C-alpha cells in the first residue's frame, strides 16, 4: 500500500509526468498553476487520477487550498491516513 509520504510523492509525480505534455522538473515547491500551466479544471482532473489510485476523495474546498505539489502530497497523505 502506498501510504508513506515518500510513496505518495513518487506516485503523484509519476502520474503527473505521464500526463504532462512537456518536461518540467517537479518538487514539493512546484506551483501547480504557475509552473505547470494547469487551469482549474485540469487540476481537478489530475486530482481525480490520484483519487482513483489511492481510493480516496479529495473534497473541492481542499483542492482549492492546494497551491504546490507539496500541498497536494500532504493533503493526500492526511486523507489516506484518516481513511
Amino acid at each position, binding site marked *: 500500500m502506498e501510504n508513506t509520504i515518500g510513496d505518495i510523492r513518487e506516485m503523484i509525480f509519476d502520474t503527473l509526468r505521464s500526463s504532462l505534455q512537456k518536461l518540467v522538473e517537479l518538487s514539493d515547491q512546484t506551483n501547480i498553476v504557475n509552473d505547470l500551466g494547469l487551469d482549474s479544471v485540469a487540476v481537478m482532473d489530475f486530482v481525480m487520477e490520484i483519487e482513483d489510485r489511492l481510493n480516496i476523495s479529495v473534497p*473541492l474546498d481542499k483542492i482549492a487550498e492546494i497551491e504546490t505539489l507539496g500541498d497536494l502530497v500532504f493533503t493526500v497523505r492526511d486523507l489516506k491516513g484518516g481513511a
Partner: protein
Amino acid sequence: MSLFDKFAPLAAAYNRLESTKSNPFNVTFDRVLSPTEAKIGNRLILLLGTNNYLGLTYDSAVIAKSVEAIENFGTGTTGSRIANGSYDGHNQLERGLADFYGRKHAMVFSTGYQANVGILSTLAGKNDHLLLDADCHASIYDGSRLGHAQVTRFRHNDPNDLANRLRRLADTPGDKVIVLEGIYSMLGDTAPLREFAEVKREWGAYLVVDEAHSLGVLGETGRGLAEAEDVETDVDFVVGTFSKSLGGVGGFCVSDIDDFNILRVASRPYMFTASLPPGVIAGVMEALHQVRTRPALRHRLIDNARRFYFGLSELGFSLGPEPSPVVSALMPDPETAFAFWSQLLEAGLYTNVSLPPATPKGLALLRSSVSAAHTPAQIDYALALFADVGRAMNVIPLARVRKAV
C-alpha cells in the same frame, strides 16, 4: 494598480484577442430581426449560437402577453419577494411550472444561474455532501462553493465512479445530494440517467437534475431528460432556466418534497434579489403554454439538430457524441477556433467559441445551437459556410467523406 496585478495574465490573453479584431467575447448585435437573424452594422447575420431552441423570443402571443403585463403591472417589481411582496404572476408561474412537471412545489428565481446557486447552496448543509458531475455548469460549482457542504466531483457520465465515491462516503454522516445535467451545454451530450437513478436508489441519496438545455427539447411533453428516460420519480429536484427554450430570463426549481417552501426563507440568492419583472413572467408563462400545446416546435427542433449534426459529421468534422440542439465541432486548438469563428462571422454566421476551463478535457470548441425557428435552407447555408471555412483552414478533408458513426 497592484489590486489588478493578479489579472495580468488574463489581460494579456484578452488583449491578444482584441488585437486580432475578432474577439468572440465582445460581439454586439446592432439590431435583432428574428430568432434567427440579426444585424451587425449593415451586415445581415444568421444566428446559430443563441440557445433560442424553440425560437419563441419573437412569438406574437409571447410578446402580446409580455406587453400587456408591463402595461398592467409596470416595468419592474423594484424589490424581492420576501421583503417587498410577490405579484400574482409569480405565483401563477410557479403553479404553472408545478403543474407542467406534475410536482407539488415550484420556486422561481431571477436567473437560471441563481436557481442553481440558490438551491445547491441551501439544500446541502454543513455536514451534508454534494456530488457533482465533472462537466457540470459553473453555476453548479458556484452554488456548491457558496454553501457549506463538502463537495466531491465524479467522472463525467460515469455512474460507477459516482458509486465508488458514495461508497467512500458511506460511513460519513450527512445527506448525499447528486447533481447532474440533462443535456450538457458544451458538447450537447446527455446523462445516462437510468443508471444514475439506480446508483441514487442504492445509496439512498437525493438527486438534482438541471434541465436547462433539455426543457422543451427532450421528453414526450418537453419536460426534459428525466421524462425521456422515464425516471422522473427518482429525481427529487428539477432545476431549469427560462432563458433558453422559453425565450425569457429566470430560473426555477420544482420538487415533491413536502417542506420545500421553507427554502424561500433559507435560500439567500432567492431572498436578497429583486424578483422577475411582470413582463418577463407573463412572457415565460405564455412560452410554457406553447411548449405544452405545440409539440411540433420540438419536432422541428430535433429535425434541424439532426440535419446540422449529421451534415457536419459527413463533412468530416469531429463532433460531440450525439445529435442534440447543441452541436460542437472540436477544433485542434484555441487559435484555430478563433480564426474559424471569425471567418464564419465575416461570412455572416454567428456561432460561439468555447475554451478551457469552461470546456471539458481542455477542448477548444466551435459551438452552435440550433433552433426550431431555423429553416432547412438556413441550416444548409450554415453547413455550406462550415464546409468552405473548414476546407480552407484544413480542419476537414477537401473531399466530402462519409464518416462511420
